[in-house]
């Protein structure tokens, strides 16, 4: 890519919407090349910090509903690293062919902010504005026209334009045009965000690709190993890909021009690099380029042997692993045996040992027996603990059993009780009914006559008799109940 006609071609590949340009652009250098005449990036990034959001962050921890706002402030502070990207829709590449009717006749791009003229033509607002400042005629039919005659284009035109698939200038993935700025602001891994050290003590005001933002602050000076230029680490990748004067170098083996940066990746796939035979470790010393190597592989004398050796190797490894496992279990068992032995010794004379423990403590030579003593005691403790826990478990089990048994027995009793109570009530009712019957009979008999007698003409008479009679009837019922 020197200059001359080539430069124009490259420009087309990076900006134009011709299908040939899209397909022929090489993957490694698909981004616009920094050539002198058109090194512009088709989007701008707004750097100024939004004063409102920062104010919110600083004030939120002190606000009364702390827990509620804290979460929000956290998400905001991570959003804080996002930058607003203003994309120049005239400079980006669109996916596929675009309907000629959606093109502005002046800038020959898909319309941006379209307006409708009195004479039913649609232009970008910016384009027609420029044109009218030059001459107040419609550029198409020369109909007299002024800025105030322009009106917003129909919604349908906007919708059609919004749904055009535009390629993200950073990651080259196609999105609906209306979503592009949002994508770049929030999601695109290749777009710029503020340095993650913005809120830390460093207060770094730099920008970095979102993809690299979790690597901490990359805004420190380094030297390009190829061209010796000093630059920031954050720009190193771009520099190696597009800017560095030494970025291109021929491959040592196949002489195609490659990016220095991609040398390792290239050599892995380069067909001209000499590689050893795949049975090298079994003694084949043959080395050749990829094509010849494949031929060699078929007739290599180590081919048979290699396969067998590979199997043996695998088996040996398996056996080694098994041996290791066995060793480990063996070691464990040995320790167990030792422990049991020492435990047995101690149990033969536990009280003796306990008595002389003071003497042992002072005697450093007897450290081992002390240790085993301790171990023994600990083991005893453990055994006891186990027993206790067993007992506790049993106890709880028993308790549960008992409660269940109790329940089982009490429930039928309760039922019986309830039954009895109901029968008793029924009998009570019967008795009462009978009693009332008897009382009425008695009253009739004691009163000596029918109804008029108790409500006699003299007022005192019945009042004296009634309590007596009632008392009588009361005692009668009591007697009857007790008899029953």
């Amino acid at each position, binding site marked *: 890519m020197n200059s001359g006609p080539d430069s*124009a071609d490259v420009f087309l590949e990076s*900006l*134009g919407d011709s299908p040939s340009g899209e397909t022929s652009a090489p993957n490694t250098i698909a981004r616009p090349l920094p050539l002198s005449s058109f090194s512009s990036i088709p989007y701008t990034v707004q750097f100024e910090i939004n004063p409102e959001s920062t104010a919110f962050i600083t004030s939120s921890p002190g606000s009364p509903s702390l827990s509620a706002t804290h979460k929000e402030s956290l998400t905001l502070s991570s959003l804080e690293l996002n930058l607003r990207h203003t994309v120049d829709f005239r400079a980006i590449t669109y996916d596929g062919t675009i309907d000629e009717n959606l093109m502005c*006749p002046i*800038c020959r*791009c898909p319309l941006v902010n379209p307006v409708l003229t009195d004479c039913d033509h649609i232009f970008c607002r910016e384009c027609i504005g420029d044109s009218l400042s030059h001459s107040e005629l419609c550029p198409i039919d020369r109909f007299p026209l002024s800025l105030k005659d322009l009106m917003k284009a129909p919604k349908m035109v906007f919708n059609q334009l919004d749904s055009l698939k535009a390629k993200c200038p950073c990651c080259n993935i196609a999105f609906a045009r209306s979503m592009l700025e949002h994508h770049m602001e929030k999601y695109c891994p290749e777009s710029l965000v503020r340095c993650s050290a913005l809120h830390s003590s460093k207060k770094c005001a730099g920008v970095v690709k979102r993809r690299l933002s979790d690597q901490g602050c990359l805004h420190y000076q380094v030297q390009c190993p190829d061209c010796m230029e000093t630059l920031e680490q954050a720009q190193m990748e771009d520099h190696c890909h597009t800017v560095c004067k030494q970025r291109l170098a021929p491959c040592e083996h196949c002489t195609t021009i490659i990016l220095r940066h991609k040398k390792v990746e290239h050599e892995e796939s380069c067909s001209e690099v000499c590689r050893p035979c795949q049975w090298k470790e079994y003694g084949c010393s043959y080395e050749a380029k990829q094509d010849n190597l494949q031929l060699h592989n078929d007739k290599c004398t180590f081919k048979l042997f290699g396969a067998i050796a590979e199997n043996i190797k695998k088996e040996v490894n398996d056996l080694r692993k098994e041996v290791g496992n066995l060793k480990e279990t063996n070691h464990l068992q040995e320790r167990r045996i030792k422990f049991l032995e020492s435990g047995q010794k101690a149990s033969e004379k536990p009280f003796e040992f306990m008595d002389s423990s003071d003497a042992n403590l002072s005697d450093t030579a007897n450290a081992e027996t002390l240790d085993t003593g301790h171990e023994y005691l600990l083991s005893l403790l453990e055994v006891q603990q186990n027993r206790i826990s067993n007992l506790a478990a049993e106890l709880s089990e028993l308790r549960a059993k008992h409660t269940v048994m109790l329940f089982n027995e009490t429930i039928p009793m309760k039922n019986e009780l309830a039954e009895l109570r109901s029968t008793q009530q029924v009998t009570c009712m019967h008795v009462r009914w009978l009693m009332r019957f008897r009382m009425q009979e008695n009253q009739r008999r004691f009163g000596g006559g029918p109804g008029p007698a108790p409500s006699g003409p003299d007022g005192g008479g019945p009042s004296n008799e009634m309590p007596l009679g009632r008392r009588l009837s009361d005692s009668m019922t009591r007697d009857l109940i007790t008899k029953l």
Partner: protein
Amino acid sequence: MAFATKRLGKELAKIHGNLPPGITLVTAEGFQEWLLDIQVLDANPIYTGKIFRLKFKFSSSYPIEPPEVTFVNTTDRPIPMHPHIYSNGIICLDLLGQQGWSPVQNVESICMSLQSMLTGNTKNERPEGDAQFVASNRRRPRDIDFYYHDNTV
């Protein structure tokens, strides 16, 4: 420059794709000056077998302002004989003046207009006062207020 560059980039892409018959792109180095060849396709005896070279000069306010279009004279590319074309290559065409220009015009449409201007011509002559104009003119073509004295051609 940005606006003109973008627009010319689009045009160049289209020109690389396909051009109408009789128009060929010679060079388009950068976005200031392009050279195109045009020829008249029908049997007009004045122009048969001849190819003419056009030079386009774009200002930074293209396409709001017209480009400067002239014929250039080289060994095998003569200046066409036409009552509106001076012998120094300056073209008297309202389309290319400040008044007649429209931003919807483009390189291709200019070439086609010139093609049809030559095709429709029957007079094998130069404009009136050609020698005097060529000798005295120091102005840029687009600043000249042509007097369109013969609107029949």
